[in-house]
């Protein structure tokens, strides 16, 4: 039995220690936000935060999550309010098919946490998730916009 916290809730799963976190989330705990795209850490559709760090959950064994904190897109909104990144994603109409977007948003949130004011180069380096629909231009714009909106108001 592996126990960990998902979006602030204690969860447990009776699974093999090597079962990837992605499949524990999706098929055992019914957390469907993280998506399967490749299974080999190439596409990022499965991106979640493990103790605040973005990870590709298809390539993280369940055992590595034991006792840790997992945050998925479902846990991003706080008290019913969307995260500024989610809002920027709506303002700039980023998603097309939407399949990659949970992962994109989790990657962007992690980037902004580390680097509240990323340059284009920083975005290039951090946002390596695939989007087959080609929403990249809008992802970039939305990240810049979210960075602006997250700036603490000047006194």
């Amino acid at each position, binding site marked *: 039995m592996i126990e960990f916290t998902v979006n602030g809730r204690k969860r447990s799963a*009776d699974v*093999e220690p090597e*079962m*990837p976190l992605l*499949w524990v989330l*999706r*098929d*055992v705990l*019914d957390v*469907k*936000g*993280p*998506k*399967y*795209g*490749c*299974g*080999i850490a*190439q*596409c990022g*559709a499965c991106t979640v935060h493990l103790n605040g760090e973005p990870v590709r959950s298809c390539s993280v064994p369940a055992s590595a999550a034991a006792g840790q904190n997992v945050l*998925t*897109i*479902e846990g*991003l*909104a706080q008290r019913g309010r*969307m995260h500024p990144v*989610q809002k920027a*994603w*709506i303002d700039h*109409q*980023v*998603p*097309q*098919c*939407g*399949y*990659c*977007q*949970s992962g994109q*948003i989790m990657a962007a949130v992690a980037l902004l946490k580390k680097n509240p004011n990323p340059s*284009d180069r920083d*975005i*290039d*380096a951090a*946002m*390596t*998730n*695939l*989007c*087959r*629909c*080609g*929403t*990249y*231009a*809008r*992802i*970039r714009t939305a990240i810049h916009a979210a960075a602006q909106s997250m700036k603490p108001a000047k006194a």
Partner: protein
Amino acid sequence: MKTAFTPSRRKFLQQSAAIGGGLTFGFHVPEALAQRSDAPGAEMNAWVVIRPDDTVIIRYARAEMGQGSSTGLPMLVAEELECDWRKVRIEFVSTSEQLRRNRAWGSMATGGSRSIRDSQEYLRRAGATAREMLLAAAAQRWKVPGSECDAENGVIIHRPSRRRLRFGQVAQGASKLEPPGEVKLKDPRDWNLIGKSANRLDIPDKVTGKPLFGIDVQLPGMAYAAIAQCPVFRGRLRSVADERILGARGLIKVVKLEDAVAVVADNWWRANRMLKTLPIEWDAGPDGGASTASIREFVRFGLEDTSVPVARDEGDVEAAFAAAAKVIEAEYYAPFLNHAPLEPMNCTALVEGGRVEVWAPTQNAEATHATAAATAGVPLENVDVRLTHLGGGFGRRGFQDYTRQAVAIAKAVEGTPVKLLWSREEDMQHDYYRPMTLMRFKAGLDAAGNLTAWRIRDASHSILAGVRPQDIKEGVDRHALGGIVDLPYGVPNLRIEFAMRNSHVPVGFMRTVFHSQNPFMRECFVDEMAHAAGKDPYEFRRALLQAKPKDLGVLDAAAKASGWGSPLAAGAHRGIAVQDSHGSYAAAVFEVSVSGAGELDIRRVVVAVDPGHVVNPDSAEAQVQSCVAYGLTSVLWGEITLSQGRVEQSNFHDYRIMRLAEMPKNIEAVLVPSGGFWGGMGETPLAPLAPALCNAIFAATGKRIRSLPLSNQGLRLV
């Protein structure tokens, strides 16, 4: 409609108790999110339902795969309905309803950029009809002539008395009235919604991780299937040593299909892991030795063959070549490509008591329905297909191989719903690929550099041969000749020949279809002609397009927006191309520089598009961006290769997809809708990209690109 959608919840829960063990899942299917129909509403017609609280439900019968038509099509209805756009909700249509109501929703297929152009008329009519009924009901209630009433933003106003009634207040009565026989559609000048950017209705659910997709379908007691298909197309399953995994954790069943093995288990990862350990023997059949080189040679024979069908023969090309001041010849090649939507193929099915229920991300719901019925051996009336969002489609999801498999597997575990999911590896190696095509051109120019003769020989796989062979007339597949047989250029002597060369590799419709490779060949060769004629490639095209105002219009728009002819930064060069397709017109200009080491820098991309009318400009711009990413991925790296009859690529590490850092930063979508027609928007912008880029590379390097992808031509994106 609601009852038709409600699955037998109790039954599922019983099953879940029986086989699910400790599973305590909620029940959610993606369509439920789209509906949220709690309050009853008054159905005005098949498309429009209005609730007492003024919520307007507009039904959607096509596939939402990212293109935005689940917003664009409702906009067409709402434009005529005069409802409050903020109160519009979308509801997906199911195929059993479609069948029961005698195809009330027209075609449910989504492909060929047809969603808007084929349905705009009946959708606008449905909105107008509902509006007239609401007006009539309000007029009756007020006992005033209908001509004194207007509908505006969800309210009916009696002009003389300024009295008002909300749609929700009169909808019940209105729905009982006889629909008017004739309705007048608005003049485009009076449109309020169409042509103005609207936020997409599906986006809020897509940024909050809602389970919208086929892969997210969750039914109580559901089992999961992973599949391995014969790696050589047309091969067969010989044997599988399934006793090896007997008693393995989570195993429910091993299902043998004619050309595949599926493992059904209590979660997908276990199913897939067991599948990988299964010793499977395949019968590769006669194609087990085929390679890219052998297939290319086989297709290329079509260029050499002395007798092939002729699609067009005008004037006398041979005489014109003999009289020409200059003759040029070239041969072009485009490889197989994989669609690679990010959501791999999947389908959930339940076979029970002679009925089949299917949840599928499909581009052709009625074909899914028919496939499910045929596979399960039940009448059409006993099937229902519920639509989900698609994690990309690009033409792949019109084919029903995954539906057939899912239903066959579900049949083997009757009473248990099964979600079949392909691994990325299966998806990569079992596509209906963009066809491999070769073309040879010969052109004659007179002393003044005018084009006098053009001969085109196309040797290609045919998609129609697999799906609609009756449409191939006298050996000529006009579909495969898209952009060639309907050449917009005026040329006095023209001969177009077609050699159909089908290998064992299955081929299918991939975004822009033959307009993904034919324009590359045609428009690069036109550039070769211009160069040979010593003329500017833009002016050379202009002269040949005098009888084609719409092609000319986008060509001019792209040239103007890009500043064609104006000085460029040091090292930068431009290329141009034009191509109509899917009822619309597009032209592109690329600005690039190429270093001596082959480092390609794409500095600017300008795409001009004339789709007649633009419904949602913001979505149209998104489609241009999407086409740039999809098109450039193909041009830069796209290639599916074969060895031993099987596809060599297996995942994104060896089938490269453009990433954010590689996306050109400077993309301009120039929308020039000229009105009077309705064209597609999801594919046309892609068509001129490859040739415009390759022509820019020629301008920069003097090297002609006649074979794709660019990664095989010593070029590397920086």
